[in-house]
């Protein structure tokens, strides 16, 4: 708290600040991504060729889009476990309703978007109106939606949409100079990402973060909590719908498409340094988390690691990445309140509540506690714990 005075930005400090950002939880995912991409390129130099690289982006696009949707839910303090089932349902809907009739593509696409928004609306209303923890509400939606989809198809792969519709996930703008082909998925991903960044910067996007950080304060500052929260669920379901549209072309119609996407998305978002429980995180980092995850899989493939060990490596990486960001975040948590993030950790990085070395930090905390009694436990609590709802 003494370090507020030390704020003369010099070139050296700025460079140090940039370096610190890169190793900070917020920037770590980009560092991880760069390291992974370099490692892949060393193992397989052709990966760096533009045409190969754009294929990689095409492969990541659905996961990244789902992660972007999940970001809004998580930063708002909730979970959406139903995304995988939404993807599956949309893929099956596209396969069965479009059929070989090209002219139906547009109406069915509209219907899918409406359906996605509706699922999100139901999720959001169950969470906000019935006060069911989002973990449970979306878990129920996941079971019910997947069950209904499988019941509809009889559990088998049925239906095959018209080729024109599958082009969205499969085709692209051909005969381009450097990259040879610009897949539509990449275009869609860029559009979604730009919209997401724009949206996150709007007042509404900032309200979501405020709501995730502290619902009580958000309510007192005039937020309609139920509507903001509901809209995050609608965003996530809509993003799952878009991912479904891409996957129809890329992976085909099968009830197993989309399975496990919710956990992949949550993993990607958390890798991106977004704090479970809400209130902190950057949407670009969440998308970068999806890229890092997929790059990790690609690296394991190229390195000849048996596919059965993929899960084990993924598990270890997740734990390490989150452990890294969690321990770093703890060290600088005090700085956040004063909005002077970088240089502030110097005086007492170890004076967090965990160490009970001397009475001095305790007194300091007491002073802070008496100044602002209520918010302290809740903001600190939000860092490390899973908030189920309300």
């Amino acid at each position, binding site marked *: 708290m003494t370090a507020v005075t030390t704020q003369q930005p010099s070139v050296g400090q700025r460079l140090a600040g940039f370096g610190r950002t890169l190793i900070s939880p917020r920037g770590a995912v980009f560092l991880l991504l760069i390291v992974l991409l370099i490692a892949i390129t060393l193992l397989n130099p052709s990966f760096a060729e533009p045409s190969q690289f754009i294929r990689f982006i095409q492969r990541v696009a659905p996961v990244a889009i789902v992660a972007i949707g999940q970001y809004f839910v998580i930063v708002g303090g909730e979970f959406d476990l139903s995304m995988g089932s939404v993807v599956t349902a949309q893929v099956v809907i596209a396969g069965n309703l479009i059929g070989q009739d090209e002219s139906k593509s547009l109406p069915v696409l509209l219907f899918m978007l409406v359906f996605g928004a509706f699922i999100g609306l139901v999720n959001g209303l*169950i969470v906000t109106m*019935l*006060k*069911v*923890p989002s*973990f*449970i*509400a979306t*878990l*129920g*939606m*996941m*079971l*019910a*939606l997947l*069950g*209904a989809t499988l*019941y509809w198809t009889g*559990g088998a792969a049925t239906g095959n949409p018209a080729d024109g519709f599958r082009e969205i996930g499969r085709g692209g703008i051909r005969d381009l100079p450097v990259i040879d082909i610009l897949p539509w998925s990449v275009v869609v991903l860029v559009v979604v990402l730009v919209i997401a960044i724009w949206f996150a910067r709007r007042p509404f996007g900032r309200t979501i973060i405020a709501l995730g950080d502290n619902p009580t304060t958000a309510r007192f500052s005039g937020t309609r909590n139920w509507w903001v929260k509901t809209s995050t669920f609608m965003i996530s379901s809509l993003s799952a719908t878009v991912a479904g549209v891409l996957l129809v072309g890329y992976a085909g119609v099968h009830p197993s498409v989309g399975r496990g996407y919710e*956990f992949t998305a*949550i*993993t990607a978002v*958390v890798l991106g340094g977004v704090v*479970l*429980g809400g209130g902190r995180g950057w949407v670009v980092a969440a998308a970068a988390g999806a890229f890092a995850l997929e790059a990790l899989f690609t690296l394991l493939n190229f390195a000849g690691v*048996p596919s*059965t060990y*993929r*899960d*084990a490596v*993924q*598990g*270890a990486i*997740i*734990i390490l990445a*989150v*452990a890294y960001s*969690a*321990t770093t975040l*703890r060290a600088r948590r005090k700085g956040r309140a004063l909005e002077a993030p970088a240089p502030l950790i110097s005086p007492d990085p170890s004076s967090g*509540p*965990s160490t*009970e070395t001397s*009475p001095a930090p*305790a*007194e300091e905390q*007491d002073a802070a*506690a*008496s100044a602002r*009694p209520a918010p*302290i*436990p809740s903001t600190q*609590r939000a860092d*490390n*714990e*899973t*908030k*189920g*709802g*309300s």
Partner: protein
Amino acid sequence: MSTAAATSVRRGRRRRLDASLIVGIALVGVIIIGAILVASVGRNFFSAGNIRDILTGMSVLGFVAIGQTLVILCASLDLSVPYVISLSSLIAADLMAGNPANIPFAVLVVVIVAGLIGLANGLIVTKLKVNGFIATLGTGLIIKGYLDSNYKGTSGEVPWEFQLIGATGVGPVPVSTLIMLAVAVLGAFFLARTRVGNHMFAVGGNEQVARLSGIRTARPIIVAHVLCSITAAFAGLLLASRLGVGSPTVGIQGGYDLLSIAAVVLGGTLLMGGRGSIWGTIGGVAIFAVVDNVMSVMQVNPFLKDVVRGVVIVAAVAVYTSRSLDRRRPRFGTGSAAPDTPADRSAPPPAVAHEKEASA
């Protein structure tokens, strides 16, 4: 300090009774509706065979959910249970290898391995400060990688003597369910009467306050994770005894991770931690078992079963939360007296500071 602990225990017990009561009412309601539905297709819900089916269906999920309750009370989660279940069924079947003399050794090894996994979970959550959701998702994936790489299919052989645990019963009550209920009694005793058990409520309710009250917050969380993995191992042993072999997919197929969490929440335990009870969880598991049983008897399409399950989970929790919302208030005052609150709020900091100084 001691008086504060005593009042919190007393208040906790009253609250737990309330929660269990609502779950019990819900269970009775589900049983009545189920009995009517089953009667409508001309079968008897309360026949000995049917009751045995329900109780058998409860036992595996019951084991997992007891452990999950402890973890969720500490405001953590355990998503690694299905893989622990599969792993312990495989280790047990491999070590027993059809020889009854190996049973104690195999059970011991399984419990130790599961305990170590739980210890790893707990240490990652408390020492590395990784959210329980991510930590256990990660360890679960690591175990899954191990299972997928080393086991191609079912493996080992369980001797007949061990299979009896899953097969026999006392009257209509299967032995496995009796063991599960015994574990539940132990769990409830542990929560109500031991220091670590009480600390679980404190740490789950508010870790900062628990720490400032002089509780070593890491220990209850680690213990909860260890116990959760061990109860999951019991579930794996039970499944091995039923199947006669160990299977690498038995845990994942059952979906025990999410279903156990759902059962715990259905039983009135707050997902945010700090409030709940073992008996509520058993009630939640029983509700699941009854719903599943009714659907089986009525021969519902297996895919539609999932739809019904999802709707039941959401509806039941919705009913529960809407009822318990007004019960949330007393947490912020002491007991009934509202004027106590400001005095209460201003009192703790000096006391804590004193304690700190005394301890330093």
